[in-house]
C-alpha cells in the first residue's frame, strides 16, 4: 500500500527566496503527524503545498498523495482526499453552521444541484462527531472561539476526506477548549482512521498525542520520527535554540516539556 502522504526533497521558494528545503517524510494512512518549529520555519507553507495554495511560489521535489503526484489531481479530486482547517482569525463568512458545512460538499456536487442523501448523511455525521448538532442553526459570528474552531473542524470532516491538515487548531483557544479540540483530534484519528497533519506551537501536543513529529527550522527538516523521541531534548534544543526541561506527569506518566527561563 502506498503512503497517504509522501514527500521527497520537497522544496519551496517564494520569489527566489527558499522557504522550505529538502523535506522528506512518509505517512501511512491513519498516521498522526505533529509539525513543530519556530515562527517562520515553513510549517504553514508545507500544509499549503498540499492544498496547492502556494500562490506564485515554486515547489520543487516530489510530493505524492496516495501514491500519485500532487499535480496529477484536479483541485476537486484533491479536496475529496485532503481537507483543511485554516488558522483561526480569518474573516468569517456570514453563514450559519449548517450552511457553512454545506459548502464542504462542493467536491461531490456537479453543477448547482441540491444536497443528495449521501451529502446529508456526511453533514449529520460531521456535526455529531464534533458535538455541534445543537448549534447547527447558529451563525458563525455568534459562536465562541472554541465553538467556531469546532465548526471549522466539522466543515473539514463534512468534506469526507481521509487526510486532515490543521493549522494551529488550538492556538487561539483557552486551555479547556484547547484540550477539548486536542482530544477530538485524537479521537477522530483513532476511531475514524483519519490521517492528521497538525501544525502546532504547543510542544506538549506531540508528546501527548504520540504518533510522529516533523521538526522544521528555517525551512529545513531537523527531525522526522516518533514523537517520544522529542523527550531526548537535543532535537528541540536545536530547533528552537533554547533549552528545555522535561518532567513526568504525576498522574498519566506522560512526558511534559517546559521551556527554560533564558
Amino acid at each position, binding site marked *: 500500500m502506498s503512503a497517504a502522504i509522501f514527500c521527497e526533497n520537497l522544496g519551496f521558494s517564494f*520569489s527566489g527566496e527558499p522557504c522550505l528545503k529538502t523535506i522528506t517524510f512518509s505517512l501511512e494512512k491513519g498516521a498522526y503527524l505533529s509539525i513543530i518549529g519556530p515562527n517562520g520555519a515553513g510549517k504553514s507553507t508545507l500544509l499549503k503545498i498540499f*492544498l*496547492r*495554495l502556494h*500562490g*506564485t511560489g515554486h515547489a520543487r521535489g516530489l510530493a505524492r498523495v496516495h501514491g500519485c503526484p500532487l499535480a496529477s489531481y*484536479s*483541485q*476537486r*479530486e*484533491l*479536496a*475529496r482526499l*485532503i*481537507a*483543511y482547517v*485554516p488558522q483561526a482569525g*480569518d*474573516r468569517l*463568512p*456570514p*453563514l450559519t453552521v449548517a*450552511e*457553512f458545512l454545506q*459548502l*464542504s460538499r*462542493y*467536491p461531490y*456536487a456537479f*453543477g*448547482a444541484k441540491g444536497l443528495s442523501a449521501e451529502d446529508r448523511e456526511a453533514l449529520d455525521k460531521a456535526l455529531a462527531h464534533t458535538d455541534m448538532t445543537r448549534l447547527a442553526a447558529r451563525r458563525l459570528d455568534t459562536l465562541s472561539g472554541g465553538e467556531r474552531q469546532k465548526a471549522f473542524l466539522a466543515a473539514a470532516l463534512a*468534506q469526507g476526506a481521509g487526510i486532515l491538515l490543521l493549522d494551529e487548531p488550538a492556538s487561539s483557544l483557552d486551555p479547556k477548549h484547547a484540550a477539548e479540540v486536542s482530544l477530538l483530534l485524537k479521537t477522530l484519528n483513532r476511531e475514524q482512521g483519519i490521517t492528521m497533519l497538525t501544525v502546532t506551537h504547543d510542544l506538549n501536543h506531540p508528546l501527548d498525542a504520540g504518533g510522529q513529529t516533523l521538526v522544521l527550522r528555517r525551512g529545513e527538516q531537523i527531525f522526522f520520527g516518533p514523537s517520544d523521541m522529542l523527550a531526548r531534548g537535543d532535537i528541540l534544543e536545536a530547533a528552537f535554540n533554547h533549552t528545555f526541561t522535561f518532567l513526568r506527569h504525576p498522574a498519566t506518566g506522560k512526558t511534559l516539556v517546559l521551556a527554560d527561563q533564558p
Partner: protein
Amino acid sequence: MHLTFTQKKVLLTTGCVLLVVCAPFWGMTVISPFSLLESGSPEAEVFWRLRLPRAVAAFLSGAGLGVSGMVFQAMFRNPLATPFTLGVSSGAAFGASVYFRFSAPLLLLGGAGSLGAALCGGLLSMLMVYLITRARGGFSTSVMLLAGVIINFFFSSLVAFVQFWSNANDSLRIMHWLMGSLAGLEIARLADLAFIIVAGALLIFRLSPELDLLTAGDELAASRGVAVRQAKVTLFIVASVMVGAVVSLGGPIGFVGMMTPHICRLWLGWAHRQLLPATFVLGGSFLTLCDLLARTALAPAEIPIGIITALIGAPFFLWTLFRANQKGELF
C-alpha cells in the same frame, strides 16, 4: 416586518414584474393599453418602436450591471468592488469613445463596432488590472482593488483626451454618452445585448457554488476543491463582457452594480443560487424605473440616466461606508 423567504421572493418578483410591464406605457404621454389593439395607431407605433425596446434595454442593462457587480463583490469579498471601482467601465468607455472619434473609417462595422470597441476596452482594462495584481504576487484583494482604481483614473483621463481631440460634434456626442443614456438606442443592438446578458447570467448561475465558496475566502475555496484561479478568471471575463455590452449601448451607468447586489444580499442572504436571480430582477427593475424618471421628470427634455442613478447611488454608497465602519468590516 418579518417575512418568510418565499414571501420575500414573491413580493420582489411581483413588484418588479408590475413595474417592468407598466413602464413602457408611461412617458411624456401615457399610452392606453387598449390603443395597442388598433394596429397602425400612432400610439401603438410609439409603444412598439420606441418605448418597449427602450424598457427592455433598460431592464437588460440593469440586470447585467447588477449581476456583474454581484460577481465582483463576491470575488473580492468587498461591497465596494464594482464594474466602476475595478476600472472595467472606464476601459469600456475608452473603447467606445475611441470608436466614436474614429468611427468614420470604421463605419463598415456598423453599430456592432461600438459594442466591439467597448468590449475590447473593458477586456483591456481587465487584463491590465490582472497583470498588475499578478506582478504584485498572489491574488490579493486590496492590490486588485487599488489596481482597479488606478486603471479607472487612467482610462478616464484617456477618455477626456479623446474628447479634447475631437471636433465639437463628436465631443458632445461622447459627453452625452458618458453621462449614461439609453436615448440613442439602436434596436438592432438590442438582440446582441439580450444574448450577452442572458448567456452571461446563465453561465454565472452555473458557477454559483464557486461564488459561494469564494465569498468565504480564496483559501477555504481552494481547500474545498475550487480551482480558484480558473474560476476567478472565468468570472472576471464573463462579468467584464457583460459590462462592456451594457456600456457600449447606454454608456457607463454607475452605481447599479453596487447597490442592487448589496440590497439583495441584505434581504435574501448569501446563497448565490437565490442571489443571482434576485439581483438580475432587481437590477433590471431599478434601471427601468430610473429610465422612466429620466424620460418623464423634465419631459420633453430627457435627463441622462447616469445622472439619476448617481443621484440615488452616491448617498447609498455613503450609507454602505458608514454601515461598514460600525462593524469594522464591510461584509
